[in-house]
């Protein structure tokens, strides 16, 4: 690790993002660069693997190796890369459709394999790139309000899904809070195993102000007494508090340093 912290800007390239003005993804991009700087990573040692969607454009704006793959497949490609090249820092990212619809089948298996990489999902509960269809996390209220398809279908609980798959590190953050996002990312990348970050975000174009105000009203940080190493407590949060931000679960690491490993799931 470098003693002098690099500037976050050194992890940005010259390409201007194509996201809508006010999109939460700008903040996510900044947090990525801040976390990389904070961790003192070498640009060339980072590989960001995404799927397809607005948020999956993120690797294209980073001064790091990037691979904007195909819809729903960031995890297999990232897993293959990390397995073949354990020396790299691999971060997979994408949106809620990419993660929980087309790519959902890969999530439990990536978690079971527990590669030392981070999966960051920007969840705005909408398909933005295809202009506003419902995603697996869109609430029934919104679907009814907007007349979207699948009104009878229940939304999926991302955090409970990854908890149930046995993820060792599970956090939630929100795209409007760069400080918190950076903190979560830094901790997730440091975690020696598969880490998952659920990032609540707003699609300014297809979710709009009401959604944003609603989100801002509901979100809150986890209570300081929450014991993130307690799996039962984590399940409680996962099940009952979809707006809690922070590290929900962190499975204890047995040995730090080169012998780093995560306790096996029983």
């Amino acid at each position, binding site marked *: 690790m470098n003693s002098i912290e690099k500037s976050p800007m050194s992890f940005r390239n010259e390409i201007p993002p194509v996201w809508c003005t006010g999109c939460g993804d700008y903040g996510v991009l900044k947090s990525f660069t801040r976390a990389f700087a904070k961790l003192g990573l070498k640009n*060339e040692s980072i590989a960001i693997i995404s799927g397809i969607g607005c948020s999956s454009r993120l690797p294209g704006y980073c001064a790091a190796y990037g691979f904007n793959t195909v819809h729903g497949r960031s995890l297999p490609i990232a897993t293959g890369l990390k*397995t*073949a090249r354990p020396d790299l820092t691999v971060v997979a990212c994408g949106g809620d459709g990419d993660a929980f619809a087309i790519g959902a089948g890969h999530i439990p298996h990536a978690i079971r394999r527990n590669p030392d990489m981070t999966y960051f999902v920007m969840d705005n509960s909408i398909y933005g790139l295809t202009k506003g269809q419902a995603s697996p996390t869109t609430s029934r209220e919104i679907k009814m309000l907007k007349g979207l398809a699948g009104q009878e279908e229940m939304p999926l609980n991302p955090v409970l899904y990854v908890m149930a798959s046995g993820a060792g590190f599970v956090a939630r953050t929100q795209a409007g809070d760069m400080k918190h996002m950076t903190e979560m990312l830094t901790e997730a990348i440091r975690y020696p195993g598969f880490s998952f970050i659920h990032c609540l975000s707003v699609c300014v174009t297809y979710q709009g102000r009401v959604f944003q105000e609603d989100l801002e009203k509901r979100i809150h940080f986890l209570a300081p007494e929450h014991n993130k190493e307690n799996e039962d407590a984590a399940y409680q949060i996962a099940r009952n508090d979809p707006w809690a931000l922070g590290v929900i679960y962190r499975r204890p690491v047995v040995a730090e340093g080169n012998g780093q490993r995560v306790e096996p799931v029983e």
Partner: protein
Amino acid sequence: MKEKQVWNLSLVGSGGDGVMTTANMLLKTAARTGLYGMMTQSYGPQIRGGEAAAHVTIGVDPVTMVDRKKDWIVCFRFADAVRFEKEMEAAKNTVVIHAAEETEIPAMFAKAKGKNIPIPFLKVLQEAGLSELAKNVFLFGILVRALGWKEEDGKACVAEMFSRKSSAVVSSNIRAFELGLHYMEQFTGPAKIFKPKSGVSRPVMTGNEACALASVAAGCRFYAGYPITPSSEILEEMNELLPKAGGKLIQAEDEISALGMVIGASYGGVPSMTATSGPGLSLMTEMLGLSGIAEIPLVVVDCQRAGPSTGMPSRMEQSDFWHAVFGGHGDFPRVVLAPTDVRDCYQTMFRAFYCAENFQLPVIVLSDANIAQRAEVIDPVDTDSFEKPKRLNWTDGPQGYRRFGLDALISPMAFPGTAGGIHCIAGIEHSEKGMPSSDGAMHEAMNQKRFRKWEALSETAVGWHRHYGPPKAPHVLIAWGSSAAVAREFAESHPDFAVFVPLILHPFPKKALQHFLKNRKTVSVLEMNYQGQFYHYLKGIGAIDGNAQSFKRSGGQPFHIEELGQMIQEGGIL
């Protein structure tokens, strides 16, 4: 026509009878004594359990196919034998060995006038104080005696087969072997005496084993795959081989993921592959396109089985050809290779990695259920003369890095970790530096770039075909994959026929074929699928003309020589 020195045997049993073990031991002993041989296996649709048949052909020269006419047939239950009626034919001299309890001889053995030897397997074993489980080794003793092989060669094979078991198991199996050996003496002398041309011991392996061994030898260091018949042995074999070679393997959750992982690892600079069968290739198709546009090397072995959908999982067919060549949306170059036998798998895998790594594109190897799972005694392979895979890697230079430079035939790859080579790639059409592009002219230029590699490859793949038969023979058969054997066999006994066997199917060696076809009278294409996929492909690219005939049928059983003779006759060629 010189009579071939071969001996054809079929062993039929149910789960637990151990006929596959007996057949394996027979093949291994043949290999040990300097003989050649081939063994194919047949199962019902259930893959595991139920009736199974092993067909073994032993020969003085390399065996290219298993003959349908049998010298010997051994079955524990006639009911099982009847299920394989289409694969084995009793001839006039066929010897039938069966359990003594089975009395009603089925119609399929009506022609067998050789000898009918009922054996009370259970009784004989019980009287010797041996378990019924030793039935197959007892049978092995019978067969070793019938072939006039040396007792010690058979014993060595039994000892090797059970080497992982306790010494008690080994010694009781040796006893069962001896019992069989002596039991046979009362019925017959040696059925066939072979004189091997040399006493050289040769390796025995299946096509799947050969694919795995060759891949690791060619430099493959990452494998991801999903179990599917008839390719699973490649996954199992790679799981043994890769850790020893410093490689990695992942058993994926599905075939989409398997090929995704291969792309990830290959993007990381590591030569990578997967193996599958038709249903898996269908799922992998989206990743083939990604490999095409992002120019990431990968190798897929497709052990074809009868399709569509689940089809007939344990039965061969050559019906994935169109999918391999044309499957996927959009335009992208890919290479399709086809081994014709087990030994061929070696060079094919070297070539596959050569094409993938050197030209940065997806390569599909079309094996099939027959080559994949049959065992052959093969001559040792010398890989020194094979094409060597070598990826063009980028090392730091003064200019800005362009992953997809239009000025280069092959653009160097900078993989993650390479300082100064940072870039982003995508499944999206891109500029030279990898930036997303929606410009039609750029798309055209990039398509040209990607297909230029393919054209250059077709220029280097010279001699990736074989031919048999006299240069002036008026009739030509074109065949690929495991169907090539029957065409070759036919031509050996019909001097009016010559055979052309492409080992690379796409890009097709058109010039070589056209040269070969000069001054011939007829051309026919033999393949095992309903639509005549290869025939239509050859017509489409102008490699054959409208007068060419298509010899085809659905899969299930390998072609046999009489069948080809009939096709030729019906085609008015003979």
